[in-house]
């Protein structure tokens, strides 16, 4: 009974591999996840847009965290420099959470994340009255998937030009 079940499962796996032509597709996805996350913080670039050359618009967070990573701080320093250079530009920092949390807590978490980014911009010389914070909680994911990679893209604070 058990043996036949194992045998059956093996057959299914084999069949699946054949369909995917030697599992090439599967492997690609696997490396993609590995290469795009550090811990569970997204380090890829496929959702990132640019405010100006060399100025990425967003930073990413670990699950339930609002701590800025080294890469995030680098991004925010570039944003601060760009804002100092373009003193007429105001921004909205949009804070987001992934779907794996309760709605109200995630609204607060998104607000906390955006404020972490705001504080950092302020320490690099951007005046607070040029920055508005807006939390969307988990209401506006950028990736609608339900897997660790999608969630990592959604835990973000995005700097958006307000004028």
């Amino acid at each position, binding site marked *: 009974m058990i043996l036949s079940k194992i045998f059956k499962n093996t057959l299914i796996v084999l069949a699946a591999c054949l369909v995917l032509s030697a599992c090439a597709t599967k492997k690609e996805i696997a490396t993609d996840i590995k290469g795009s996350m550090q811990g569970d913080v997204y380090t890829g670039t496929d959702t990132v847009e640019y405010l100006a050359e060399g100025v990425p618009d967003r930073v990413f967070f670990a699950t339930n965290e609002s701590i800025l990573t080294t890469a995030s701080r680098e991004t925010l320093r570039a944003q601060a420099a760009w804002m100092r250079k373009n003193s007429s530009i105001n921004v909205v920092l949009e804070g987001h959470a992934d779907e794996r949390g*309760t*709605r*109200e*807590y995630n*609204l*607060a978490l998104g607000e906390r994340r955006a404020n972490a980014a705001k504080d950092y911009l302020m320490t690099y010389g951007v005046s607070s009255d040029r920055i508005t914070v807006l939390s969307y909680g988990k209401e*506006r994911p*950028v990736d609608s998937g339900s897997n660790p990679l999608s969630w990592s893209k959604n835990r973000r604070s995005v700097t958006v030009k307000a004028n």
Partner: protein
Amino acid sequence: MIKKIITLFLFLILIPINSYALIEVDITRGNLDPLPIAVSPLSIDEKSRKSFEKVLKKKNIGEEISSIVENNLSTSGLFNPLSKDAFLQAPDIANLKPRFEDWNLIKAQALITGKVNYVDDKLRVEFRLWDVLAAKEMMALAFTTVPSNWRRVGHIISDKVYERLTGEKGYFDTRIIYVAEEGPKTQRIKKLAIMDQDGFNNKFLTLGNELVLTPRFNPTSQMVTYLSYFKNLPRVYLLDIETGTQEVVGDFPGMTFAPRFSPDGKKIIMSFAKDGKSDIYTMDLENRIVDRITNHPSIDTSPSYSPDGKYITFNSDRSGYQQIYIMKSDGSDVKRISFGNGLYGTPVWSPRGDLIAFTKLHKGKFYIGVMRTDGKGERLLTENYYQEAPSWSPNGRVLIFYRETKTNDKGEGFTAKLWSIDLTGYNERQIKTPNDASDPSWSSLLSN
């Protein structure tokens, strides 16, 4: 079965005159043995039938109302309405004097009969509840209303029958406010919607131009408080369902969210987020005085009052992660009450006062559960991939919540629906909605 008959027999000997609780339905046990009940269609004379057909476009309003009662009793999980095909007695004669042997024969233990008339442009209904085994009338009531209220008539009859047989108030003449959802997850369109507790009379209250979340009923009136992103400013709003008037109440420089009414309906309690911290505030709706209740660098949100208004339960991550706390309503004596494995959110105090319902996240699963107000006696009622936001029926016996399920095995696509479950953990049911749905809130009884 034998035991039940003996109990009834003893009861009759002890109190032969007082007919109180001849049949008793134990609502604390779950739906293992629902009570067989016969709902005879409300009888109607031909003249009344024609009048209602003209006004309401329903062929036989008596049968329509009875099927509302049947459906309510059946979904409660406590009753087993018997098939009408087996009924031997005609509705009009049964309402005068049931032939109990006939109803006994089809194993009905209780029987509902009644009649409906068209009188002076109004709907007049009378109904009776009978104990078949004891061959006795348990209750007889009559009332008059406008014909367009015919669905409510069915709900009121259901409530009266439920109350008479269980000893507790019913929850059928109630409404649910919720968020109707459509569109892709990345650009979800959300509208406020309201419907009867059984899913009928669905109505959209907003157009979907701005994001709306977490509507909650005022326990004392038909007012609703909710979060709207009108003009991209997330603020707490008030909505009068009868007049459609909306006004902002949480217009502070920051985000106000997670609103709920106090039990007397005079205050709104909510979170206010600014500079990365969320605290709990109240606003008196009469004089607009704002009180700060918590002051902590952590996230404090999802506040909910105890029914006597003396305590507040809320969600905080001051311990490092989301947990459930209680405090006095002035913010003093803060105590953490959730200590199980995992994260806890969305605490809601039961209208009976003894329990707090919550959402729990543990090892990638979401649970709806209840615990006592000291945090002990945790019981998880249902487990799923994703579900949250329980809201209590006004009698504290049923929870409504929402759940997202994947549309296929690969985890692609999703659908969000409202579900209800008994406090016993039995009787889980999906509530039909025209669109996807989330964030349900249960109203108080519309009538008493």
